[in-house]
Every structure is written in structure tokens, then in C-alpha cells.
């Protein structure tokens, strides 16, 4: 099947191989998407959940364990403040504490609701079992079971390739089934995107399927983006392993490639020194010798994922130095993405978003949102998006015969092009993954990347060479990668200062007047604007101008 065949085949008039009707369609079936689908179902909606991979193993934490923040309703006020304000200083003026508290309180309710679905915090009989700590595979296994019992229709291996719309409102999505190459279309009263962020195929654990599809889908519908300039996090993994889980990094001693100790630096705190050692000496090494008592046993119980590496290769990381690599994590543990309001609406009728795909800078500002806030946000945003989407669908009575297909670059524009998805992919990665370009950013290097990425976008718009369904998917994914890379690069250029995770080597200090979000919109021409304050971001939608005017 070629792009042209997919595009003409499709679905706008209901001619896809499989056509389903739903109140709410959820795209993406990992933490955020599963919870969204359950929330929409609980609100009485008929729900379809489509997942590029398999709901149960897909998503960035499917193989690892994560902790999520929450605030209990009866928490003492000191405890409440400790959690709510944990990232406040690092947020550098871009968070919104009212929002933070609301998110963690909702997360608390969601974790309790998950328990009521049969989830056990002691599922692995380990010492570390506690409220808010999730074993990835187990959590998704429980969520899948709950979805099946609740009567949510699951389509696995069924990536969405584009949104469908009617009369200015999003009204469904269409895609393919990877196993058969058949096309599908779901006509829905509302769509929630929970497609995650992207790490630009850096190889970080669990990220092969998250290439920024949601940026493309939402961007084509007119969504606003924010916070992408803060995407400078690299995870540490034993060399050759994709596992960037950071449990050990603050308990290790670090050395450069020649074995010289790296000062007092440890883990994330010493990221700059470590990154410099990578560039200057070609590598880094570590040994986990600074953990508290019992750390070894605790780690083995809680992080079986990382230990597959050590055990299978016969390395004892507590007594032996091992080589370490830095792997780019893109927008995953950072904060940028699609701007949403308190109900997780994107500001576009019928389109909602949840989880990593969204802008999380209201939660942790210019700081990372991984290690607690991100998981809380997956549950809270899923709850709100699912509920609001169900309500929107209920209010919508029209069921139009024909829907407009919104997909363009990589799918429908200029079918004469002869680009190869893997070439475009490689070109994007070489603008984003290197430490020199993304960790040590300068205006000059960013401008150079922007030129390259703009021309990649134009090339992609001319079309790809596609024969099979898999080629169509890969072409669309390549377009998504270019879109995400361009948005991130423009965001970094607009913020001419350093703040939190965003550092410009040529503008090393932060400017008081820039303590507000940068908003971007458009995929062809990217317009930027500064909003007045974090909570204003979504209200500013549609009033964008090209000139940043802080």
C-alpha cells in the first residue's frame, strides 16, 4: 500500500477496512492512555483504545518501575507542602502551585481507584512495596485486565496515522493494523491523544514506539506547544544497555574514560561535568559504592530491569567499575508538549491530551518532571481528559457522514517524493542526539540545526517512497520526528536565556522578564509567543504572533 493508496482508500466516507463508532477514542495505550480510557468508560462513554504496540507492554515504563507523587486528603500541612513544593525552586518561576496540588490530590484518588480495581502494591512481595510505586509490567497487566472487563474495545498493533474532523471539531482518527496492513477508522465524539513524548530514537529503554506522532497529529489540528526548550535530559545507562533508570546514579562514584575521578559530582547533579568528560575523554565509568546500608539488596528487588544487564554480563556493579553511556531522553522526563487546560482540552473542539504528550511545565516548570510528578500527571490528566472527552461526546449529537482527514506530511502531501524514512530519521537524530547540540546548546548551533531541519521538513512534505503498510507507518513516524525536532529547536532559539534545564552557552543567565512559557503553533511556519503566566497558556490559543515580546 502506498501513501496515495492509504490516503484515497481511507475512511473519510467510511470506507476503511474496519470502521468503528465510539463516544471517546483514546490514542496510545500506556499509563496515561489506559487511565484515560477507564475514566471515560466510568463516565458512561463507549470507548475505543488504539495502541501502536500492545496495551500491556507498550510505553516508556512498560519494562521498568516508577514512583508517582500524591497528596492524601488528610495529609498534614507540612507533609503536603513538602510534596507540593518539592520542585518549586528548580521550576524557576514557571510552575503553578495551585495546579501542582490539584494534580497530586487527583493522583491520590486515582491510585486508590486503581487499588479498588484489584491492583496490589505488594504484587512482588518486596520490601519496597508502597502506595504510588508502580512495577511497570504488572501495572499495565492490571490496567489491561480492567479495560477488558470494563468493556473498552482494544485495538492493538493499530497505530493512528491521522485525525479526522468535521466542522472545525476533531471527530475521530484513522490508521492501519500493522499485522495485516488493513486500514481502520474510528468515528468518535471526542479524541484523547496519549501518545507520549519522544526520545528521537535514542535507544532509551521503551522508547522505540514513541517518536512524536502526537505532535504531528495535534499540530495538524492546530494545537499549541510549550516547554520544549527544556528537553536537555540525558539518562545514564551501563554501556550497551538501554536502561536509563536512574536509581543508582546518586550512589555511585564517577570516573572519566582514563579512570580519573570526577570530583564530587554524582549522577544528575553532576551532569555537566560528566557530559564534558564524555566529550573530552570519550567516556565515563562508575561504581555503585556510595549507597546506604542495604542498598544492594533493595536495588536488586526493585530494579530487575537494570540487573538483567549486570547479571547476564557477569558484572558486579557494587564492587567493579563499569562503563556508562549517556542516552538522550528527549521530552520524556522533561516537560514540553501540547498545551492543555484544566480539563485537558487542547483548546480545539473534540481534542484532548494526557500524559507525556502534554506540556507539563505548569507542574515542574523548567525542572524535570520524571521521578514522581510525571506519573502523577499521567493519572490525573488521564482522569480529567477521559471525563471531559466523555462529556463533550455526550453533548455532541451530530454524526456526520463524511469526515475530513487532517494528515499531511508523510501521508498525503506530494506523493511524488522519493525520501526514505530511515534516511530522514538518521538526519533528524544527528541534529538532536549529540551532547554538543542539545546539552551544550548555542544560538549558532541551534540556527544551523534549524536550517537543516527546515529543509528536512520540506523534503518530507514532498513525500516518501512507500510500498507496504509498514513503510507508510515509518514515513509518518519520520515526519513526526522532524516536526518534534523543529518545534524543540525553535523553542530553544526563542528563549534567549538560561533557565532550569534550558541552557544557552551564549546566554548563560536567566532574565526575569522571561519567567513565563513560550508558546509555539503551526507545523509549516512555526509561530511563537510569550504568554503572561503559566495558567494562561491555553487561553492564549489562536492569538499567536511571530514576534516574541517579553
Amino acid at each position: 500500500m502506498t501513501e496515495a493508496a492509504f490516503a484515497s482508500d481511507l475512511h473519510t466516507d467510511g470506507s476503511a477496512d474496519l470502521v468503528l463508532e465510539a463516544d471517546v477514542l483514546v490514542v496510545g495505550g500506556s499509563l496515561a492512555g489506559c487511565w484515560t480510557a477507564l475514566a471515560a468508560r466510568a463516565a458512561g462513554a463507549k470507548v475505543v483504545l488504539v495502541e501502536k504496540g500492545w496495551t500491556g507492554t507498550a510505553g516508556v515504563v512498560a519494562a521498568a518501575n516508577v514512583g508517582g507523587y500524591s497528596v492524601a486528603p488528610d495529609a498534614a500541612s507540612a507533609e503536603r507542602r513538602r510534596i507540593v513544593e518539592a520542585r518549586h525552586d528548580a521550576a524557576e518561576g514557571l510552575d503553578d502551585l495551585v495546579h501542582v496540588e490539584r494534580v497530586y490530590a487527583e493522583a491520590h484518588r486515582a491510585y486508590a481507584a486503581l487499588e479498588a480495581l484489584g491492583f496490589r502494591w505488594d504484587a512482588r512481595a518486596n520490601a519496597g512495596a508502597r502506595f504510588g510505586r508502580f512495577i511497570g509490567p504488572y501495572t499495565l497487566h492490571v490496567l489491561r485486565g480492567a479495560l477488558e472487563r470494563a468493556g473498552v474495545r482494544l485495538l492493538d498493533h493499530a497505530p493512528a496515522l491521522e485525525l479526522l474532523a468535521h466542522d472545525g471539531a476533531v471527530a475521530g482518527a484513522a490508521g492501519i493494523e500493522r499485522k495485516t496492513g488493513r486500514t481502520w477508522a474510528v468515528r468518535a465524539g471526542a479524541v484523547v491523544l496519549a501518545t507520549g513524548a519522544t526520545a528521537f530514537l535514542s535507544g532509551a529503554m521503551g522508547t522505540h514506539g514513541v517518536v512524536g506522532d502526537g505532535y504531528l497529529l495535534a499540530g495538524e489540528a492546530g494545537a499549541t506547544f510549550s516547554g520544549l526548550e527544556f528537553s536537555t535530559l540525558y539518562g545514564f545507562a551501563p554501556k550497551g544497555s538501554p536502561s536509563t533508570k536512574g536509581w543508582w546514579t546518586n550512589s555511585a562514584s564517577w570516573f572519566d574514560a582514563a579512570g580519573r575521578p570526577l570530583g564530587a559530582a554524582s549522577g544528575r547533579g553532576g551532569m555537566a561535568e560528566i557530559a564534558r568528560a564524555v566529550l573530552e575523554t570519550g567516556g565515563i565509568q562508575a561504581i555503585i559504592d556510595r549507597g546506604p546500608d542495604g542498598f544492594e539488596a533493595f536495588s536488586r528487588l526493585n530494579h530487575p530491569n537494570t540487573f538483567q544487564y549486570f547479571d547476564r554480563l557477569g558484572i558486579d556493579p557494587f564492587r567493579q567499575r563499569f562503563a556508562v553511556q549517556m542516552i538522550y531522553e528527549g521530552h520524556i522526563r522533561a516537560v514540553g508538549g501540547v498545551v492543555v487546560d484544566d480539563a485537558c482540552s487542547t483548546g480545539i473542539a473534540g481534542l484532548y491530551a494526557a500524559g507525556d504528550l502534554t506540556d507539563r511545565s505548569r507542574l515542574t516548570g523548567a525542572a524535570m518532571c520524571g521521578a514522581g510528578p510525571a506519573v502523577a500527571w499521567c493519572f490525573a490528566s488521564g482522569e480529567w481528559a477521559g471525563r471531559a472527552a466523555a462529556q463533550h461526546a455526550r453533548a455532541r449529537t451530530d454524526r456526520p457522514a463524511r469526515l475530513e482527514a487532517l494528515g499531511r506530511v508523510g501521508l498525503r502531501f506530494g506523493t511524488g517524493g522519493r525520501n526514505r524514512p530511515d534516511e530522514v530519521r538518521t538526519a533528524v537524530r544527528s541534529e538532536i542526539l549529540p551532547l554538543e547540540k542539545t546539552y551544550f546548546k548555542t544560538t549558532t548551533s541551534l540556527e544551523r540545526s534549524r536550517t537543516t531541519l527546515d529543509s528536512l521538513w520540506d523534503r518530507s512534505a514532498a513525500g516518501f517512497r512507500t510500498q507496504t503498510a509498514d513503510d507508510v507507518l515509518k514515513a509518518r513516524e519520520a515526519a513526526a520526528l522532524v516536526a518534534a525536532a523543529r518545534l524543540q529547536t525553535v523553542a530553544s532559539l526563542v528563549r534567549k536565556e538560561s533557565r532550569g534545564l534550558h541552557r544557552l552557552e551564549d546566554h548563560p543567565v536567566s532574565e526575569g522578564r522571561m519567567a513565563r512559557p513560550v508558546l509555539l503553533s503551526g507545523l509549516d511556519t512555526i509561530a511563537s509567543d510569550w504568554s503572561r503566566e503559566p495558567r494562561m497558556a491555553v487561553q492564549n490559543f489562536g492569538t499567536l504572533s511571530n514576534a516574541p515580546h517579553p
Partner: protein
Amino acid sequence: MIELIVADRCTGCGKCIEVCPNDVFAGFEGDQPTIARRGDCHTCFLCELYCPVDAIYVSPLADREPGLTEASIVASGFLGHFARANGWRAGRPLREPARPAAPTNAA
């Protein structure tokens, strides 16, 4: 990266074909799967976890070309290692959800 399926153990149940998030395996239920798209594997070990008979070995090295023999993998004791560490047996968690989840809605 996915290394190999131990032919002696594999029952052809098709579970790995179903659950791999990156569609790495191909084949039909009843037959032993083939590793059709090795380059799409992202080393999540989840096919190992879901395989009911511990027949799959994933190398912890993301880019490695397969080079181990079935015999050496069986002898290593690492078949099913990730599953055991996660508290799973025969492709399922040992501790299933405490009670069956009620439908979330009467509708």
C-alpha cells in the same frame, strides 16, 4: 536485543507475537515464530516475561548481533530470569489482582 527462541521449549503459542510492542516476531499460532524485525527490538524483556515456557532469551546489549548458542543459554540459567525477578511464572504475575475488577460503569 532479542537473541533467540529456544526451539526445544517453544510450543508455538503465539504469545510473543501478540505482545511484542514493536512487532518483532512473525508467524502463526501453532508454529514457532520467526524473529522477523530484529532491528525494531528495544530490549524490554517483555516477550521473555509473557512467554509461558521461558523459551526466549533477550541479550541485555541493545545493539548486539546474536552469537550465543541455544545450549549455552539453557545452561546459563538465565531463561526466565527477568520473569522470576518480577514475580511472574508461566507468563503471568504470581500475585494476580486481589479481586476481580468490577465493571466501572453499569452502562
